[in-house]
């Protein structure tokens, strides 16, 4: 099964089994991972699902679409080069993605 590792800002990690086609945000919310708020439920309107993706994973992801990039200017913790909105990231077959959540989403 594909999996996603969520590490919080203190360094604590959780590994969650994911379903192909779900978003990285949905996967987190369903298993109660703290650190991802996702107020708007994935409609690209809140920027509270912000994550930093680890280098290896970054290359495997499709690049940000224009609106994801725009919304990343609205995050609570400043964006970095590896910032993504997790509601826009789809879990694919065999993926083993590692993301870090920011200290705050709001």
């Amino acid at each position, binding site marked *: 099964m594909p999996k996603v590792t969520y590490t919080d800002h203190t360094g604590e990690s959780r590994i969650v089994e994911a379903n192909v086609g779900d978003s990285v945000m949905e996967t987190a919310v369903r298993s109660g991972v703290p650190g991802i*708020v996702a*107020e*708007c*439920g994935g*409609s*690209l*309107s*809140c*920027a*509270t699902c912000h994550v930093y993706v680890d280098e290896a994973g970054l290359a495997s992801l499709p690049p940000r679409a*224009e*609106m994801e990039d*725009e*919304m990343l*200017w*609205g995050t609570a913790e400043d964006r970095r080069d590896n910032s993504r909105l997790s509601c826009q990231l789809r879990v694919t077959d065999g993926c083993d993605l590692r993301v870090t959540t920011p200290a705050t989403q*709001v």
Partner: protein
Amino acid sequence: MTSTRTLAGTASACPVHHGYEPFDQDDPFPSYAALRAQEPVMFDERIGYWVVSRYDDIKAVFEDWETFSSENAQAPVRERGPQARQIMEEGGFTAYSGLSARVPPEHTRIRKVAAKAFTPRRFKVLEPEIRANVVRLIEAMLARPERRGDLVRDLAHDLPTITILTLIGADVDKIGTFKRWSDSRSAMTWGDLSDDEQVPHARNLVDYWAECRRLVAEAHETAPDSLVGDMVRMQAEGDPISDHEIASVCYSLLFAGHETTTTLISNALRVLLSHPEQWQCVVEDTGRIPAAVDEVLRYSPSIVGWRRRALRDTEIGGVAIPKGADILLLMGSANRDESRFEHGEAFDISRPNAREHLSFGFGIHYCLGNMLAKLQTRIALEEVARLAPGLRLADHADIHFGHNLSFRAPAAVPVTWED
């Protein structure tokens, strides 16, 4: 008032509807609690809506946009009278909704363009200007020798209105006019007006819509650096959106963009000042303001009820709902549902999950302006805490809320202060 016994033994004005009065906004919360406990999905024949009051049911309806359409979200609750209809027809009023009552695929297409124009970068640059406006308004209030003010009139009325007019590129000197048009839109759509009462409001809506179309026509001529200018440019570059649709988005933003933020700022100060110990916490540590704003949104949402329509036979919380049924989702009730919020009736800025409120809706129609609304309210609270930490509600302030199905807005928030 004689008290009557309901199933749970609580006193209420109308046992049939558990005390719920659709247009009464002074204190709807006891009736919400009774509805949640006794009839969480209730058909209210007085308005023709199925009234839904539990958190999980409301969130599920918001999420399932394929079954529950928002096409009725802007329909007049009380049918338009013949005079109003004639005025609007003759005045060329053809607006219905910018976004909230549109459905996919049309909604998806227009929302994409509106969202691209309305980005965080667009409004974040206004932060210093918003802050300067708050300071100017508060200082003007504090300069009054009688040491009395009204936070609705003196602060909340103008602040978000200036911001949205600036963003849209409309005339900032016409705050009064735009507010009057918005009040008319609110009353005509969600109010309980007689045919005669509708007439002046119908005239206002004609003027309001004419201004929206004028703004689009003007943007074609002058290519301004504004939201309207951006949308017109996107259209020229091939984004599929018509002039009528751009004008409709303006019609939407020139209402949604200030009305509910005026209410949020008013409510934030009203509720915090009526909990002086929590106001003190905010004054001592302004870092707590964002959480306080979320708790105000939960506890006292600007919009307490929003509408959907069932597109097929379905069910909500185990109650059969027929195809075509109109549904009223009481977010004001969801936000206090004990199954989600412990001690839901208590205001507590340290509540860990206040953000789970449904005050901005949920799903594909989730409020486009949520970040701008919170940004402005945060700045307003920061500056009031700094400039007027000793503010308090005026003694015997008897605060009332306008008669409306959806919008719960205080008419005034009277305050006073020591020198």
